[in-house]
């Protein structure tokens, strides 16, 4: 990312520092966004000023909060399915070399498909209640978890396995005490991608056909042309996704805490 280690372009007199430029541009954008609809440059139906979005949104906070809670529950259930099934499948695929060669390309091809097209099938099967969202989002988040778990298991240091086997470890202790902890850091990225996809999956599904939830609310406000609430809803989804991502990465850091000690010894 910031591999541009070349000397940070020395500011020549009038030139701003890059960071200042970035914040200045964002500030200008925000101010323009606020002024444009208020001054009538852009119709207010199309673009709501940020302040209007916040004020109108917070005025209906009760509605948003209950929808948010509904969506959050759906996300949590879907996460359990995506992580559980994806982790299990990834473990099985990663443990066998042949399975890896056969199944991994298939899984990554499936990952490349536009999975949204499955959603009408889900609503036809499970109705437009929470069940169809949970099925869809679990499926949506499944593949990155499978791929990263398989890759993580594959990368486990063979010496660890040999050593554990030499000490007479059986199948289950081998998996729970050697392979899973050793594979965890590689699985981490997959869990984050999977978590993001589950969140998007639930919200997208709610936008398409639902009776409750934040995505449903956004769509409803859009059809009624209540633009400020639309923007407020989108903002809430972004905050939800960001918060969940932070939560997942924090949990993971805790789960792989045993690692640094081992790494220090190597250094």
């Amino acid at each position, binding site marked *: 990312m910031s591999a*541009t280690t070349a000397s*940070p372009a020395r500011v020549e007199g009038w030139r701003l520092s890059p960071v200042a430029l970035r914040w200045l541009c964002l500030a200008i954008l925000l101010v323009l966004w606020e002024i444009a609809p208020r001054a009538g440059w852009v119709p207010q139906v*199309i673009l709501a000023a940020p302040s209007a979005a916040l004020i109108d949104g917070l005025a209906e906070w009760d509605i948003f909060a209950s929808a948010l809670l509904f969506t959050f529950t759906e996300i949590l259930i879907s996460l359990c399915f995506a992580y559980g099934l994806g982790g299990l499948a990834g473990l099985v695929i990663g443990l066998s070399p042949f399975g890896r060669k056969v199944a991994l390309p298939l899984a990554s091809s499936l990952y490349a498909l536009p999975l949204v097209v499955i959603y*009408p099938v889900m609503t036809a099967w499970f109705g437009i209640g929470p069940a169809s969202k949970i099925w869809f989002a679990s499926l949506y988040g499944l593949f990155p978890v499978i791929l990263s778990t398989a890759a993580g298991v594959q990368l486990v240091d063979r010496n660890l396995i040999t050593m554990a086997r030499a000490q007479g470890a059986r199948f289950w202790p081998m998996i729970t005490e050697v392979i899973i902890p050793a594979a965890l850091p590689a699985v981490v990225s997959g869990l984050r991608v999977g978590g993001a996809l589950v969140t998007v999956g639930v919200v997208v599904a709610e936008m398409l056909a639902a009776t409750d939830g934040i995505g449903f609310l956004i769509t409803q406000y859009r059809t009624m042309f209540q633009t400020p609430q639309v923007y407020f809803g*989108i903002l809430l989804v972004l905050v939800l996704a960001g918060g969940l991502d932070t939560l997942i990465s924090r949990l993971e850091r805790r789960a792989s805490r045993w690692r640094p000690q081992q790494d220090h010894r190597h250094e």
Partner: protein
Amino acid sequence: MRAQADRRVSLAQGAAVLAFFLLWEAASRSGLADARLLPPPSIVLPKVVELLADETFRRHLVITIQEMLLAGLIAAPLGIGIGLALAESPYLGRAFKPFFHFVAAVPKSVFLPVFILLFGIGFGQKVAFGVFQALFVLVIATSAAVAAVPEELLRLARANGATRRQIWVEIHWNAMLPLILEGLRLGMIFNIAGVIFAEMYVSRAGLGQRFSTWGESFRMPELFAGVLIAAGLSIIVNETLRALERRAGAWRTS
């Protein structure tokens, strides 16, 4: 020896796909799944042929392909251009790269209602949404590609008196192409999904619009056939770009 192992792998993959279709057929024939909700492949596959022969459906399909290609044609030069600018100017890179990384990580599908407010529900809105989906990953891939150009090769070429043009064509281009193509492939995947999603959401034409209609009216054979066609479309795009990527990167291993 290696070829034999490869053949065994592709044989097993073919068997897995075949087994999937056989299980699907068996499940809906045996009554394990309701055949009205899960029509067997023996009904769905002929439906695919029937749909592709149907002129009305072909018109929807062509619209989706046009939206997707136009979005790709806009996003590719734009994304590569921005990526190059960010990588070649340390100043711009330091100022704006974090912004692009941030937006790339944000779930972009939730912005669809904004695109409807801005661009309406027609052809242009789908294209704009496709561009939006594809752009950021491409910018990031391009600027990462510039960073991946091997420094020692550049120094070697300069020491041997290569011209600026030679350095660009022979070194930069060859080193960057595989990574840019990978970014383009990811961008196109997001683009296709975005366009179809936008059509499913609110639209008068296109593949996605058909899917929503079929789903709502429980026309399951058509729906499953359509899903297979959409999958085929994205597999074609994905595999074409992946083949180009492999060819462009072949110099690395050889």
